[in-house]
């Protein structure tokens, strides 16, 4: 369905640009997939919705895979999703198997990625129809679920994660109230119209990274690109399918983890690596440059890409920061995900999904050729990268409404987020709060009106199977995270990675 639309010359060119650009951006340490997609949104304003999504989807897919290049050749993961790849990939490169590690990485990424997108293709239409059963109370709880799950699972501290979510929800209420037109929390004229999501996203993801680059000072990048010898691609194909256990574990783990809102690619990679190690008869070889380690980690982090979009495309609930950015990309074109997307804009939905499938294959083909260039780009000095990102952030936030007010908001939020991140707060729940806040509020008000006319607010929001299931998931995710925090057995989060990097330097 709408498969041919991907292959129109302009759409295919966008797919190529997104894929190759994403591979290069992904290899650049500090440019996460979320930030890359956020900075690309302004470039989609003049495109048709499907074309814009093709560009963003291709960039998302290939930045995750591109991160493996710097992980393997520089021992610096391009994104948190590639942390597990570093463990065996870099050792392979040091042992003179850099080309093989890169080939295994892209091939297993493609296998995992294609499986993940197929899952997206089969699950999304089914769930989108099921979403029609959701009334205001269920949608309210779903929005709250999105914020609490990501707040509790994606942060080093549950309380600070939830607090970040609350800050996001509060920011979403700034401006004029939709129903009564009352002014709320307008303490500066530039926020009278509320906080525009796109400048906020750019600021929250790009500016902290720019300031982090400043924090490194005039330090020279010590890592050197390891030279790679030629390696026959046929042998890499054989190796990937010979290691089918690692490939299967990685693909399935990534797909399942991708479906859970709030759980990112770094967790998919690390869990898949860990499981492959436990189930492998050659577990002693893990960490010494074993191909299974690379295959498991890379198939997992790309397999999660497709399923991570299922909650967004079916229920309008972005399950990850990158999905939140993609939601912003949809909303600026006046398209709402869910059944509306599939019923009223099937061309947009299916062209986007199909392009992600083709993008996985293009990413594999071009990844092998672009790897050398990407590794060189990854060595671009911090100063250049910081200035480029700052310029793009200003341009991106200005171009939304041609307003300097948006630029000021972007900078203020970004600087504030940098400060908050230094004290254990997290951007992801804040962003989800900002995006889901209006959805939660609109459904809360609508639900309250229905409740006042029929029963009581408590009865309306706290009874019914779906409501109870959603409330249970909210409680379970928070409870699980608290329990894990008390046992000090939390998985690696972005803050942990920053802390490890600081300890290492």
């Amino acid at each position: 369905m709408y498969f041919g639309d991907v292959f129109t010359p302009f759409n295919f060119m966008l797919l190529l640009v997104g894929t190759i650009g994403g591979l290069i951006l992904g290899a650049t340490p500090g440019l996460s997939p979320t930030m890359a997609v956020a900075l690309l949104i302004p470039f989609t304003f003049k495109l048709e919705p499907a074309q814009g999504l093709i560009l963003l989807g291709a960039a998302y897919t290939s930045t995750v895979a591109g991160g493996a290049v710097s992980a393997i050749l520089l021992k610096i993961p391009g994104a948190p999703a590639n942390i597990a790849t570093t463990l065996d990939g870099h050792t392979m490169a040091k042992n003179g198997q850099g080309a093989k590690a890169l080939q295994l990485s892209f091939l297993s990424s493609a296998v995992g990625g294609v499986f993940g997108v197929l899952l997206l293709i089969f699950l999304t239409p089914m769930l989108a129809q099921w979403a029609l059963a959701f009334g205001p109370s269920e949608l309210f709880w779903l929005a709250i679920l999105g914020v609490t799950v990501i707040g509790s699972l994606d942060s080093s501290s549950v309380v600070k994660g939830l607090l970040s979510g609350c800050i996001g929800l509060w920011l979403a209420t700034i401006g004029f109230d939709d129903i009564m037109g009352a002014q709320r929390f307008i303490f500066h004229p530039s926020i009278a119209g509320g906080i525009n999501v796109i400048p906020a996203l750019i600021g929250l993801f790009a500016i902290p990274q720019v300031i982090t680059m400043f924090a490194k000072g005039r330090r020279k990048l010590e890592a050197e690109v390891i030279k790679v010898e030629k390696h026959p691609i046929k042998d890499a194909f054989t190796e990937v399918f010979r290691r089918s256990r690692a490939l299967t574990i990685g693909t399935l783990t990534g797909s399942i983890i991708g479906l859970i809102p709030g759980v990112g690619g770094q967790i998919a990679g690390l869990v898949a690596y860990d499981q492959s190690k436990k189930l492998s008869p050659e577990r002693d070889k893990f960490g010494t440059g074993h191909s299974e380690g690379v295959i498991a980690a890379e198939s997992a982090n790309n397999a999660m890409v497709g399923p991570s979009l299922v909650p967004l495309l079916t229920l309008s609930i972005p399950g990850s920061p990158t999905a939140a950015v993609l939601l912003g990309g949809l909303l600026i074109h006046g398209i709402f995900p869910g059944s509306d997307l599939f019923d009223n804009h099937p061309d947009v939905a299916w062209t986007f999904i199909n392009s992600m499938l083709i993008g996985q294959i293009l990413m594999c083909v071009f990844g092998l050729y672009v790897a050398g260039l990407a590794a060189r780009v990854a060595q671009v000095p911090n100063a250049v990268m910081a200035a480029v990102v700052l310029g793009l952030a200003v341009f991106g936030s200005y171009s939304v409404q041609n307003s300097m007010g948006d630029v000021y908001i972007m900078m203020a939020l970004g600087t504030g987020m940098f400060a908050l991140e230094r004290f254990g707060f997290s951007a992801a729940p804040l962003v989800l709060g900002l995006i889901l806040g209006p959805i939660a509020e609109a459904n809360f008000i609508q639900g309250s009106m229905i409740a006042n006319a029929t029963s009581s607010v408590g009865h309306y929001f706290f009874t019914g199977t779906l409501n109870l299931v959603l409330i249970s998931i909210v409680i379970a995710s928070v409870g699980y995270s608290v329990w894990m925090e008390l046992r000090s057995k939390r998985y690696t989060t972005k803050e942990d990675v920053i802390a490890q990097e600081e300890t290492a330097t």
Partner: protein
Amino acid sequence: MNGLPRTQHIMASGVVAAIGVWVAYISYTQQPEGAFLFPRIISTVFACLAIWTFGKAILGKTKVGNGLSFEATRNILPGLVVAFVFVFWAAKSLGFYTASTIVFFILLSLYDPAPHNQPKTWIKRGIISIGFLAVMYSLFALLLNVFTPKEILF
């Protein structure tokens, strides 16, 4: 947790707690009541969590967040000042492309590890900055044809 991060944690969580309490106060005192119904719910949770975090910081029980070291602050400040001048004044007053190029050159000079006392370094920085201007202008003005802040220059 040593002294500096603890003090910083108290200050940071104190600011967040103050904002939380202010948001809750506004939510419960402003009219019309209906417009502040949802903010009341979230501000209550916001204020409670923020006060909890502040209390933990005072007791020195904060477990996450490394704060800002003196060295990091010293490195950040010049770049941040330049970024603020760019965003809040230069981009609008001088024009986006002019301001971006000047800021690019200044940031490169501030953070580039190459030695400052060699003419070659400055020539390289100048060429990179002009290249940056050329790429930005070609991309935004010529290819995408989008609006950028314009004032006395371009």
